[in-house]
């Protein structure tokens, strides 16, 4: 049965709270700041992640990351049962109309895989036989600008078997998609019922849409699926990709573990801030609690007193912090980002929607840490004997060896034999600066905490800056694109329509491009066109997949450097690939490069064909050479450097040869593609020049190439400038930067707040000591100097730590992330560092001075009173 002494704890808590207004203000402000910061930081991070997910999905039109072509129902069930698969849906291709393709999705396929990539979905997915769902842009193409549910849509579907089906459908729903119209056709959806009425080989036309769990990357998922699911035949393939969630986390932080690490660091910084504040403010109360202990207050009662006060502070702080956080994320930032569109894919304010669960988490975290810190700090009181607690001033007896007694470390010999021992032991050398230096180390624990919090605050923000600058979309674009690319749109499909010795991209033109002012690097993909008999045995595995297996087909032969072949040889050893780069290098062999067209099994089969001979004829038909088959190489093979190629695809035979081999083949030399890197200042000028050159070339040739669509499938030259792409992504990049910038600012504020608090309270505690010094004869000027120096020394030490250890850590961070994200660019944040340090010095110097100024006005006598 507890004693009936609860009231007194409430009374004491109340009185203590009311007598400590300034302390309460500081604590409440700190809690509020922490909650606000945590809420803000994580809201922004989560918001960015969600936005990126949306972007990815909308860009690719699906939420699935892996697909299986021609998948059967049994396979779908098999895959679904696998523990590492999240969901599987199916999409059946049932043909196309002139304006759109026709597909039937199952429930998972629609709900989980496809619908998330669309927006503004009106109505429902088709259920009945005659229902249809169309994207807005498809309807515009057929002349409907004001869609209405239930309206009639006549359609003529070209079925896969070749038949044509005419039917009028009822619009059951419509949606907006964000796919690139140049690449993707709009998709119209039909019901399962309708599918059953058709006589289509479902399995042949089904693509399984798969979402795997986030911790598996694209290579691994393929391996795992191949291992666990039986393929219907040799040509069935999985196309593995990285799950979207994984991708966005990687984009933000370079990986799940680094993300967790960053989050952990931020939480740690916040916890440290809170703990520090609690610890320091409670230190002031230790005397009071010691007194209470002598009066007979038990630990439980003390705890109750402390917790009651902490509770009040928490209540105020969390409300304040939450409100401030909500205000900022819901009003200030959207205002900053207003009007920016994600490359035409929705507003960026999706980035900062209010997410209550983050607020709750921030509040809970802040609350827990505060409570625990206050309890922990209070425990120290309880451990001391009451008398010690009552006498507590936060100072420790200086260690005997350090108390100003000079010893000669090196020789042990008296350096100053003239001074007597007594004089020496009394001598405080150095005056004010030395005093300032020593003062710093008196409260050892607190000083270390100060250094840590300042240093950590700066480092975390710098780390965040490095991260955000490094993962910036700009880098992604920069890495994967050359400054300029001029390409010839010729491909094997149409090359035979042209004169056999036609040169589509003259080498003189190429020379011109390369020698333009400002061009610093160039890379050319070149080779020639030839012909190969599709019946060749050596190429069975590949040609077996193609539609018309008869007769000759035009092929592309690209020349690769010997160095490249040597690297390929290494890769072959590493990954045990079924190719023979050596024979290519010697001019005897040709490697067939495909875009992930062959399945594993097929590639393996291809191994047997290596070494077989086949003939390559030039376009005139006159010159024919015999070459050896040197194996199949997947363009997407991991570890293979991306190379510039021209058009390649499932129906194209694309060969790689060496210079020697090309000479042997005797094909007409063609330039496929030229990539240029230029000096930044020259870019705009160059762009104009290149555009002009391309335009004139096309005009002379009489080629129509105004739009990209028209340019495709012709002999036209096209050019791409990286700056265009950058410009297109500008909005996204800017808003991303703003978001990350806000994040970093919040983090920096954390470190500053900590320092603020530490300095203010330590000064408050030293008021009496300073008054004593003044009464002993130290002038105000000397005292000011001392305080200033203390601040400067602190700043110096922090700078030292940040510049040495901090730089190392940042550099390590860069390396770590670079391994995950190829396009990550490490930029040492020199400017920001200098700014932070400058700010640091100003703070460290100014704050103590301004605080001192305030207390100066009181007469010394007042300040000498033990105001507790």
């Amino acid at each position, binding site marked *: 049965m507890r*004693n*009936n*002494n*609860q*009231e*007194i704890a409430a*009374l*004491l808590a109340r*009185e*203590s709270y*009311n*007598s400590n207004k300034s302390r309460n203000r500081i604590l409440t402000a700190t809690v509020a700041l922490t909650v606000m910061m945590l809420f803000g930081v994580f809201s922004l991070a989560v918001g960015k992640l969600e936005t990126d997910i949306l972007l990815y999905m909308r860009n690719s039109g699906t939420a699935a990351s892996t697909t299986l072509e021609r998948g059967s129902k049994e396979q779908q069930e098999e895959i679904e049962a696998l523990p590492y698969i999240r969901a599987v849906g199916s999409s059946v291709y049932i043909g196309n109309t002139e304006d759109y393709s026709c597909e039937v999705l199952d429930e998972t396929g629609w709900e989980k895989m496809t619908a998330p990539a669309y927006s503004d979905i009106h109505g429902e997915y088709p259920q009945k036989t005659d229902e249809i769902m169309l994207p807005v842009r498809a309807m515009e193409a057929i002349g409907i600008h004001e869609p209405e549910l239930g309206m009639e849509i006549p359609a003529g579907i070209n079925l896969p078997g070749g038949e044509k089906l005419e039917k009028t459908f009822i619009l059951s729903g419509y949606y907006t998609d964000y796919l690139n119209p140049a690449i993707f056709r709009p998709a119209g959806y039909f019901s399962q019922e309708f599918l059953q009425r058709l006589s289509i080989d479902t399995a042949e036309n089904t693509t399984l849409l798969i979402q795997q769990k986030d911790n598996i990357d694209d290579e691994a998922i393929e391996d795992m699926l191949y291992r666990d699911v039986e393929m219907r035949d040799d040509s069935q393939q999985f196309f593995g990709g990285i799950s979207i969630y994984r991708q966005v986390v990687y984009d933000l932080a370079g990986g799940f573990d680094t993300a967790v690490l960053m989050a952990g660091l931020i939480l740690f910084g916040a916890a440290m801030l809170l703990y520090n504040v609690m610890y320091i403010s409670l230190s002031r109360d230790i005397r*009071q609690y010691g*007194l*209470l*202990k*002598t*009066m*007979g*207050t*038990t*630990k*439980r*009662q003390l705890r109750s007193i402390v917790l009651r006060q902490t509770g009040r502070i928490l209540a105020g702080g969390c409300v304040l912090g939450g409100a401030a956080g909500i205000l900022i994320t819901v009003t200030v930032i959207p205002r900053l980002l207003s009007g920016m569109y994600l490359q035409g894919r929705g507003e960026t304010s999706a980035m900062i929607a209010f997410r209550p669960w983050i607020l709750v988490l921030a509040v809970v975290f802040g609350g827990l840490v505060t409570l625990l810190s206050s309890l922990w700090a209070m425990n120290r009181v*309880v451990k001391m*004997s*009451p*008398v*010690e607690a*009552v006498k507590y001033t936060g100072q420790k*007896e*200086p260690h*005997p060896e350090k*108390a100003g007694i000079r010893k000669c470390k090196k020789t042990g010999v008296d350096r100053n034999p003239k001074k007597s021992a007594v004089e020496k032991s009394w001598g405080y050398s150095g005056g004010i600066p030395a005093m300032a230096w020593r003062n710093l180390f008196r409260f050892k624990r607190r000083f270390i905490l100060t250094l840590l919090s300042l240093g950590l605050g700066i480092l975390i923000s710098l780390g965040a800056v490095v991260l955000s600058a490094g993962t910036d979309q700009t880098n992604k674009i920069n890495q994967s694109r050359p400054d300029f690319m001029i390409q010839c749109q010729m491909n094997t499909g149409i090359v035979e329509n042209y004169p056999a010795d036609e040169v589509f991209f003259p080498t003189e033109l190429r020379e011109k491009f390369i020698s333009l002012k400002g061009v610093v690097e160039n890379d050319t993909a070149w080779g020639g066109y030839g012909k190969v008999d599709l019946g060749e045995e050596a190429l069975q595995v590949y040609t077996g997949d193609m539609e018309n297996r008869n007769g000759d087909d035009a092929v592309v032969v690209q020349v690769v450097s010997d160095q490249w072949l040597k690297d390929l040889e290494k890769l072959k050893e590493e990954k045990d690939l079924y190719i023979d780069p050596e024979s290519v290098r010697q001019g005897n062999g040709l490697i067939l490069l495909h875009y992930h067209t062959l399945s594993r099994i097929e590639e393996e089969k291809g191994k047997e064909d290596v070494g077989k001979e086949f003939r390559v004829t030039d376009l005139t038909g006159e010159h024919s050479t015999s070459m050896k088959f040197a194996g199949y190489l997947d363009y997407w093979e991991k570890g293979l450097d991306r190379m510039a190629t021209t058009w390649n695809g499932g129906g194209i035979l694309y060969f790689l040869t060496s210079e020697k081999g090309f000479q042997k083949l005797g094909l007409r030399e063609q330039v496929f593609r030229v990539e240029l890197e230029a000096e930044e200042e020259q870019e705009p000028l160059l762009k104009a020049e290149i555009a002009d050159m391309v335009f004139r070339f096309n005009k002379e040739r009489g080629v129509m190439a105004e739009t990209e669509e028209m340019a495709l499938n012709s002999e036209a030259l096209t050019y791409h400038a990286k700056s265009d792409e950058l410009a297109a992504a500008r909005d996204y990049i800017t808003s991303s930067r703003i978001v990350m910038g806000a994040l970093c600012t919040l983090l920096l504020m954390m470190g500053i707040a900590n320092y603020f608090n530490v300095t203010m309270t330590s000064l408050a505690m030293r008021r009496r000591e300073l008054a004593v010094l003044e009464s002993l004869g130290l002038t105000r000027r000397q005292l000011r100097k001392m305080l200033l120096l203390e601040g400067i020394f602190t700043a110096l030490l922090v700078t030292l730590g940040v510049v040495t250890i901090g730089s190392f850590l940042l550099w390590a961070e860069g390396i770590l992330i670079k391994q995950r994200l190829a396009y990550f660019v490490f930029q040492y944040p020199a400017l920001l560092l200098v700014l932070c340090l400058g700010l640091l010095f100003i703070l460290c110097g100014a704050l103590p001075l301004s605080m001192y100024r305030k207390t100066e006005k009181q007469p010394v006598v007042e300040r000498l009173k033990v105001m*507790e």
Partner: protein
Amino acid sequence: MEILRTENLKKIYKTLSGEVRALDGVSLSVEEGEFAAIAGSSGSGKTTLLNMLGGLDYPTSGQVFIRGKALGEMNTEELTVFRRRNIGFVFQTYNLLPILNVKENITLPLKLDGRKPDTAFLEEITDTLKLREKLLDMPGMLSGGQQQRVAIARALSTKPAVLLCDEPTGNLDSRTGIEVVGLLKASAEAFHQTILLVTHNEEIAQMADRIIRIEDGKVR
């Protein structure tokens, strides 16, 4: 009957200049109801001894027994509650709680144990100590002497078995000092209390039944 006993009590501090023996083997015994004065010059160890007796500080070696119970064997909680219920302490530095007013300070130890204040008794002692008009003032507004008197009232309020007083008359004029000691004695008689009073004032010491002289940490 013996109420208080120490056995070879020692308290040794380590400082820059070596060892300080605040108490160097103090053994004494006090009977129930006794009024003993502990006299000695500054730094003789009087306050340290009193703190040990009250369980406020822990000896380096040796034991303190109150009512046969060894203070050293109690855990912190027990010691705190024991102190709360059995010992009234008057500190040399008063040690009033600045956040409570005079009345609340006086009744604090009572409230800590959930006991109801004896209003008549408290009125009497606050009258004698001339604190009647100051009951609602905050300690910060009182003079040193007034604060000391509040501290005394506080110690008396719980009618503890043992009163430990450290220079309770230090800041009082001589007449008030005598009155205070008279008050202590009266209370001790009425409630069967034992008084140990530390003083460097010979005349105050003479008012006690017995004087324990202490010098350099040893009892003479």
